[in-house]
């Protein structure tokens, strides 16, 4: 797309800002007990303010209310959407994006504010406009634009009951990762596998068997970790190993907050531990609140299965 073509396209989309998607429209059904009960059952919401008329009669409100999160539900078009929607400013804008390659769609944000509760017998009236469209953005999904609709809700008396801002990303889809759809079952992710090479494979294999070994120089008896081919003290390449008692003390620690990596258990604390044998060791601290962990804390380790595929030493407060 040339600069001029992009400009012409953007002029066309930005002309939609402020356009009405629907005028004030009363919901086809009044707020009612049956739809509230169905919603509450499925969401698993046992709040008696929604479904227990006896409780509600004696509550501060004096009557049941509809779940606030149902505000937009009352005006939804219904099953007709499966055979296509009646055109409106929003669908026209979406078509315009689609024609220019922005075929991807992703609801990214929804914000509802509530000013007044509604109860069975009330009617929810909704009006909606296209409130704003962002500049062109580069996103993880591909280049695109965010547009936001603003819906305003009133009751049958014309009192404003709430608003909703709904943000949608329209984007040019990038190459999708190999069809997830072909997977028969969802795999629960496991930790990133340990890299096993010529010089450390033996150490991980011992770990798989439930042992933490420490490499020892055969000529000068110096211990070393992590595994490597040569003794740093005497340069000998002859070595054997001893098994650690996994008793130690925390030298340093940090907590990983963000980004959370699938397959890891949070809170996730990593520490440098001075083992009683003398070498330092990096491992997770578990079995206590992260706020209780401190430098100098005595810890005791155990090699444990942390997920379906992974054996790892973890350390607990001693």
């Amino acid at each position, binding site marked *: 797309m040339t600069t001029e073509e992009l400009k012409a396209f953007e002029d066309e989309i930005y002309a939609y800002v402020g356009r009405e998607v629907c005028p004030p429209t009363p919901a086809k059904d009044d707020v009612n007990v049956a739809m509230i009960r169905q919603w509450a059952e499925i969401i698993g919401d046992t*709040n008696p303010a929604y479904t227990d008329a006896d409780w509600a009669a004696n509550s501060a409100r004096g009557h049941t209310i509809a779940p606030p999160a149902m505000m937009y*539900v009352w005006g939804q078009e219904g099953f*007709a959407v499966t055979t296509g929607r009646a055109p409106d400013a929003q669908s026209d804008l979406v078509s315009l994006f689609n024609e220019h390659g922005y075929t991807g769609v992703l609801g990214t944000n929804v914000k509802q504010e509530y000013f007044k509760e509604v109860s069975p017998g009330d009617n929810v009236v909704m009006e909606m406009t296209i409130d704003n469209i962002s500049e062109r953005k580069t996103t993880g999904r591909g280049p695109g634009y965010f547009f936001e609709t603003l819906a305003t809700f009133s009751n049958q008396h014309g009192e404003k009951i709430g608003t909703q801002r709904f943000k949608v990303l329209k984007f040019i889809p990038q190459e*999708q990762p190999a069809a*997830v759809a072909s997977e028969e079952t969802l795999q629960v992710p496991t930790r990133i596998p340990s890299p096993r090479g010529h010089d450390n494979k033996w150490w991980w294999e011992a770990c798989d068997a439930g042992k933490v070994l420490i490499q020892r120089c055969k000529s000068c008896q110096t211990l070393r970790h992590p595994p490597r081919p040569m003794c740093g003290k005497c340069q000998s390449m002859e070595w054997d190993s001893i098994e650690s008692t996994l008793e130690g003390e925390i030298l340093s620690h940090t907590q990983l907050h963000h980004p959370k990596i699938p397959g890891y258990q949070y809170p996730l604390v990593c520490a440098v531990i001075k083992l009683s044998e003398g070498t330092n060791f990096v491992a997770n601290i578990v079995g206590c609140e992260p706020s209780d962990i401190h430098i100098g804390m005595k810890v005791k380790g155990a090699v444990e299965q942390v997920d379906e595929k992974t054996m790892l030493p973890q350390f607990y407060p001693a």
Partner: protein
Amino acid sequence: MSDYKTLTCADVSIGDKLPPLDIDITTGLVVCGALATRDFEPVHHSKAAAVATGLPDVFMNILTSQGLMTRYATDWSGPEAVVKSVDLRLGAPNVPGMVMTMTGEVTAIDTGSGTVDITVVGENNIWGMHMQGSVQLALPQGA
């Protein structure tokens, strides 16, 4: 006449954690949640339509996620709390077979207006963050 209790501002402190809640994402929850919120978009009830968009199965619609977030907040606060706002950002889809764990924390208290702000995160065990956001509740004045 019942055991329901509702927190007041005096009962809560900034940093209070809400008890975590695990939600099993089943086909029933995805499909029925979509219908209960009158969201009949085929991707929420037809596996074929969802697969055509590159996902392995039907996925949860936004209004169900939003309903679960408000439920999580009022499960904690009690039924006399009034929901003032819900603001949520969506991440990875919730697909049947996953388990979503919701966690929350009190981040602000305004004793004047009686409102508390809670941040809520819903993470599923396969793809991570499904939603994060905040709920504002107005709590009753203490007796």
